[in-house]
């Protein structure tokens, strides 16, 4: 740790980016080795908000542990809950009612839009443009309002339970979502005008942090990061869960693998999510929103793995059950962890300014990495 204070033997400057730093959006700690402004080495130090969720879950019942997972990747908490609920349902072979499945998918996609909105604003802020952040929050606010009406929470929803969803939709839900879609469509052009088309922005993003297809696979990248490098990895398409197999949407792929490609993939993904919500919002079937389940859930002995597509990539829930009411071991395969491991490869030899441009497009959420 001593060497982090000054310079190393080769005369390179060593600086700490984080744990408190405006670029890291949380308590990520990167130790950079710099030669002038050029990055020679990036070393992530994790654990500043490690709560050992995996250990906590070992003493929580199958109903309780879902709530803890909202705190992992707090920007897509619906999808985390969804993954856990799916794993339990898969293990116990619970049939989820159609209505619940529709609600879950709509909520997932709204979460994805909200998460990408926040990323878009934060990304622009990393590059020194403050205004887009506020524009992004205008739309995101509408989504959190919709969530609040139905789930009672704005960030950590805890809405998905094994067997369905916790409560039925708010009566205004369909109306609100439709007016959100209207708002979003009218504002989307603004995003491109304000940021995407900007020549400075394009110069900062194009050709920066290139991740080839082979590297993306080798580093275990997933989600928009891998798709921007041309890897087919959308779990919703490859291993469909819920009603995704019946829906029409495109898996956004790019081959450039640079920061701009990752940016464009996320921007286009928001529109695909809107497309999914549009398909579902008018057709939510009537009926039960939750399957009848026992008060105390007991999973059969065995190992269960469920992968879902969160806003950041592939989330895996791996439950090892001994047949009791609590899991014997739980492992969350978090997308951010693997995406972060590719960071050094992406930014080596670039300037400090490129570090934020590349790291921003990874869309790191630190609680997701630390768990």
């Amino acid at each position, binding site marked *: *740790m001593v060497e982090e204070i000054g310079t190393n033997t080769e005369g390179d400057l060593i600086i700490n980016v984080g744990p408190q730093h405006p670029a890291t959006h949380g308590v990520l700690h990167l130790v950079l080795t710099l030669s002038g402004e050029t990055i020679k080495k990036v070393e992530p*130090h*994790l*654990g500043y908000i*490690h709560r*050992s969720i*995996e*250990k906590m879950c070992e*003493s929580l019942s199958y109903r309780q542990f879902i709530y803890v997972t909202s705190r992992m990747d707090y920007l897509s908490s619906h999808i985390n809950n969804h993954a856990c609920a799916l794993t339990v349902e*898969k293990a116990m072979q619970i049939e989820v009612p159609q209505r619940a499945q529709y609600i879950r998918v709509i909520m997932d996609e709204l979460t994805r839009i909200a998460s990408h909105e926040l990323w878009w604003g934060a990304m622009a802020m990393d590059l020194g443009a403050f205004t887009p952040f506020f524009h992004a929050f205008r739309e995101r606010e509408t989504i959190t309002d919709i969530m609040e009406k139905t789930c009672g929470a704005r960030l950590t929803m805890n809405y998905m339970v094994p067997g369905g969803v916790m409560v039925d939709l708010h009566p205004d839900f369909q109306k609100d979502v439709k007016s959100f879609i209207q708002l979003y469509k009218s504002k989307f052009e603004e995003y491109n005008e304000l940021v995407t088309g900007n020549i400075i922005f394009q110069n900062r993003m194009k050709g920066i942090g290139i991740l080839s297809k082979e*590297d993306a*696979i*080798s*580093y*275990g*990248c*997933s989600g928009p990061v891998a798709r921007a490098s041309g*890897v*087919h*990895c959308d779990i919703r398409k*490859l291993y469909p869960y819920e009603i995704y197999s019946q829906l029409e949407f495109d898996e956004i792929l790019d081959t450039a693998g640079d920061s701009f490609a990752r940016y464009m993939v996320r921007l286009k993904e928001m529109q695909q999510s809107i497309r999914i919500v549009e398909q579902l919002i008018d057709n939510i079937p009537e009926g039960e929103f939750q399957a009848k389940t026992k008060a105390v859930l007991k999973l059969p002995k*065995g*190992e*269960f*793995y469920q*992968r879902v597509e969160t806003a950041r990539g*592939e989330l*895996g829930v*791996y439950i*090892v059950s001994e047949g009791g009411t609590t899991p*014997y*071991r739980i*492992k969350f*395969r978090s997308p951010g*962890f*693997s995406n*972060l*491991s*590719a960071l050094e*490869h992406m930014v080596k030899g670039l300037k400090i300014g490129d570090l934020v441009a590349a790291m921003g497009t990874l869309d790191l959420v630190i609680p997701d990495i*630390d768990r």
Partner: protein
Amino acid sequence: MIAMTNEELKIKLTEFLPTITFEEGGEWLNVFVTPRELRSFVQKIRTSEDVLFDYLFCLTCVDWKTHFNIVYHFSSTTYRHNFVLKVKIDRANPEIETVSDIWRTAEMLEREVYDLFGVKFLNHPDLRRLIMPDDWQGWPLRKDYEDAINMIKL
């Protein structure tokens, strides 16, 4: 590019290494390999054109109190088939060869497993504590880990 079924995979993987054993149950094929044969086996599944498991999406450890299971989840981005590889290792002296030179993602994942379970990955380029402080004593995710201050008994 058709994904192999579990049965086909079983036959194919036995060709690579006849000594592997299988565990029934679960959605995916569960394969057991001895620690000594791990390296040669994973190199084959990574490079063989028939299976091409190039995506290591999960690497973790399960503490079974008598032994550790290192669990690898593999997927192929070409064929889209998956399988689970398990390696049983000694709990008193947990050591296993690294796979971080074959799948780069394993470098961080193995550091995490080392940090939380104390499993030593031989030939790992940079095996240090990743999450816990450098001077931390003990391996938190082991079943017998006790911490009077930070853990609350329910």
